[in-house]
């Protein structure tokens, strides 16, 4: 006979919380899987009352949304968790932030608003800032202009099945150049999709259209994620949850 877990099933999820966090500094070299493990252990250390799936290998209820690539920093990573006891979102944010390494910052935590739909549906675009050490604005600007003037820019992307040609242009909805001390900065807004166009692909496209080869490895930061509206602005994906809360204030228990 197949064994069944003894005792009552795990406590159900009574509250969904949506979290925005940043990965910075040295932890930009962490992969999505590295961060997921780190987050799960931090939730245990912070004694967050996680809800678990049933069965012999129960998993905490956590859903991750599209993660920034290894090597890229981010100010806008999102994760959704289910808890078995209601928590005060701000107390949870502070406890989790304290349990995570200093280079991972928990920036926001809100309760999922009733009837506001899924978080994934509110994210289709990334806003990137890419520092290019050793590149001047005078070099970057014409490259960006040449890129925007092209309809299609084919670049080779490394995938599990070897190199594959993709178009790096169509997914880019806007791009511009600015300058900081010692480096030019590329600002680029990219629609998420398949195949994914990432900052590396846009940089490869700048090599293709203008021969722009940064002398040092660039540093990319995802500044925001959200839904691109018709005016070309990216909406805060936690906005609908906050709006739902302003309408109805629930009773909260502390973490």
């Amino acid at each position, binding site marked *: *006979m*197949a*064994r069944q*877990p*003894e*005792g009552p099933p795990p406590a159900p999820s009574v509250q969904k919380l949506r979290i925005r966090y940043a990965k910075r500094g*040295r*932890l930009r*070299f*962490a*992969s999505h*899987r*590295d*961060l997921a*493990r*780190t987050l*799960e*252990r*931090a*939730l*245990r*250390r912070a*004694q967050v009352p996680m809800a*678990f799936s049933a069965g*012999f*290998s*129960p998993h*905490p209820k956590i859903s991750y949304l599209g993660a920034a690539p*290894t*090597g890229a920093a981010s100010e806008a990573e999102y994760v959704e968790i289910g808890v078995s006891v209601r928590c005060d979102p701000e107390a949870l944010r502070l406890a989790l932030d304290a*349990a995570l*390494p*200093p*280079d991972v910052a928990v920036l926001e935590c809100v309760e999922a608003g009733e009837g506001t739909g899924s978080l994934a549906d509110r994210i289709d675009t990334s806003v990137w800032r890419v520092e290019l050490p*050793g590149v001047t604005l005078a070099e970057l600007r014409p490259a960006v202009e040449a890129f925007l003037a092209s309809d299609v820019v084919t670049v080779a992307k490394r995938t599990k099945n070897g190199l594959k040609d993709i178009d790096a242009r169509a997914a880019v909805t806007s791009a511009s150049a600015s300058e900081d001390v010692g480096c030019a900065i590329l600002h680029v807004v990219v629609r998420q999709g398949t195949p994914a166009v990432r900052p590396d692909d846009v940089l490869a496209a700048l090599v293709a259209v203008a021969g722009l080869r940064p*002398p*040092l*490895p660039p540093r990319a930061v995802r500044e925001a994620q959200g839904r691109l509206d018709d005016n070309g602005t990216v909406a805060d994906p936690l906005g609908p949850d906050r709006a739902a809360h302003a309408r109805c204030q629930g009773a909260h228990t502390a973490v």
Partner: protein
Amino acid sequence: MTTGGYPGPVMTGESLYPRLEPLLAQVQKPIQYVGGELNSQLKPWEDAAVHWALMYPDAYEVGLPNQGLMILYEVLNERPDALAERTYAVWPDLAALMRENGVPKFTVDGHRAVRDFDVLGVSFATELGYTNLLEALDLSGIPLHTADRDESHPIVLAGGHAAFNPEPVSDFVDCAVLGDGEQVVGDITDVVAAWKAQGRPGGRVELLARLARVEGVYVPRFYAVSYAGDGTIAEVSRTRDDVPARIGKRTVMDLDEWPYPKQPLVPLAESVHERMSVEIFRGCTRGCRFCQAGMITRPVRERTITGIGSMVDAGLKATGYEEVGLLSLSSADHSEIGQLAKELADRYEGTNTSLSLPSTRVDAFNVTLANELSRNGRRSGLTFAPEGGSERIRRVINKTVSKEDLVRTVTTAYANGWRQVKLYFMCGLPTETDEDVLEIAELAVEVIRAGREASGQKDVRCTVSIGGFVPKPHTPFQWAAQASAETIDHRLRVLRQAINADRRIGRSIGLRYHDGKPGVIEGLLSRGDRRVGRVIERVWRDGGQFDGWSEHFSFERWTTAAAEELAPFGVDLDWFTTRERTEHEVLPWDHLDAGLDKEFLWDDWQDALKEEEVADCRWTPCYDCGVCPTMGTEIQIGPTGRSLIPLAPI
């Protein structure tokens, strides 16, 4: 040295991270090089008199969970006058970029140059890490040969089980430390601190002479080896009379006094052990004759049930791990294990925390324990280690269990809901024939038949995991002829054929094995003498490193190097591996003392050949292995009669 546009050379102890960071964007799994793990420590350079770089000579994912390194890291950092940082083997992709850009080997904590430290301590769990030592020295800018170093270079120190015969690496390590590290690292720190405070009198040689007088520290350069006409060692003699003739190992008594690691490191990167470990006892007197660990770590010293309970509690709180492994050489032998398993299972019930025991002896009691520890969790796999295929060979290795008991134990596991049982075996054991190995197939078939019946299910599985036996120093098998790679490969082939003979049963049996070649090289390095150092250096110069990884290991590179480098001495690879030694041959490690009488080991070797067993001295009278009287130690076991205090609810 080119710096390629990055900031220039840095001051002693300064971070190399700004020069490293641009390289990290170009390598695989860069997270392993950035440090900042939970519970890692970073002390100001100037605050410490003695700086230790602790290295595990394998990839980060293998080295980070190593208990020994974690313990010493904490013990040293607790001292106000010492600082310890960690470093691991660097993969070839980053090593190439570091050489290209003039970035030397660094620690992951402070990204400080390894060559800036006073001591580089390397822990060798296996001899296959030796080429990684040479790569690390070269990448650090430390001369490979001890003779070429001056007082500006770190003292290179080897520890771990392989240090009980450090002769093959004696050209490259300044000192080898025998036995438990907790106390000796403090003694070494005191010696180095005093020598530095006095203005480094007598230079490096004087420092090494002082270290040679620390109990447990062996300094190879103060011992000369001469050889006889037949290639054997004629004599090992001291070159100065202020160092000991024999070097005895260190033994930590009362493990409860040393509850380390208190704050286990939690990596961001994935590692080979995604759990926390608590060492529940050290040493083993079961007397398995192949087992070097069981011979050199005697006597048995138990941590008490309450000591274990508080380490589990503190460790879980400090790490957030969801699994705890109760570690030792034979965990079910702890005198309070039944109560410990029950009380820990009670304590963590409903917290999604799982408890596990490493591979265990074949014993029905172990199934009971495993049931208790997995009370409400998944029962996927249970591992037993009969080691020898036939009852006869199990008597030879002194790991006696009858075939009936083995089948009964495994059947009990299936009946209790375990779906998969793993069985560990060795082949190439002394006196072994094809028939001994073929019995593994019969056993596996019987296990599956009985398991299907007991569980009423067809999906039970049995995995046979088998590797070639490598004779090790300080064991009764140190005189034995190692089986050749061809012998091992032949036996594995006939075993596979036998298992596959009946497909209806064979498809429920998995066979995992390693071919015989890496074991032959491990054998060369395990029982080698100083002449083998040239082989190691040649292999590294020819590009060899990460020899524990099948995709990096090249048997041909090793055999070519061995043939050419050993020929001038009139010996060869077979001479070191497949040759049986005689009773009075001087063995390369005879002047290193694990406490075991050579006469006891020889008698036990003769008993093995007669298939005679020896009982465990924890439950039967002492059989005079020699360790306790030589080392001034004693068996420390319970039961204590104490129980775990319930924790305050969270």
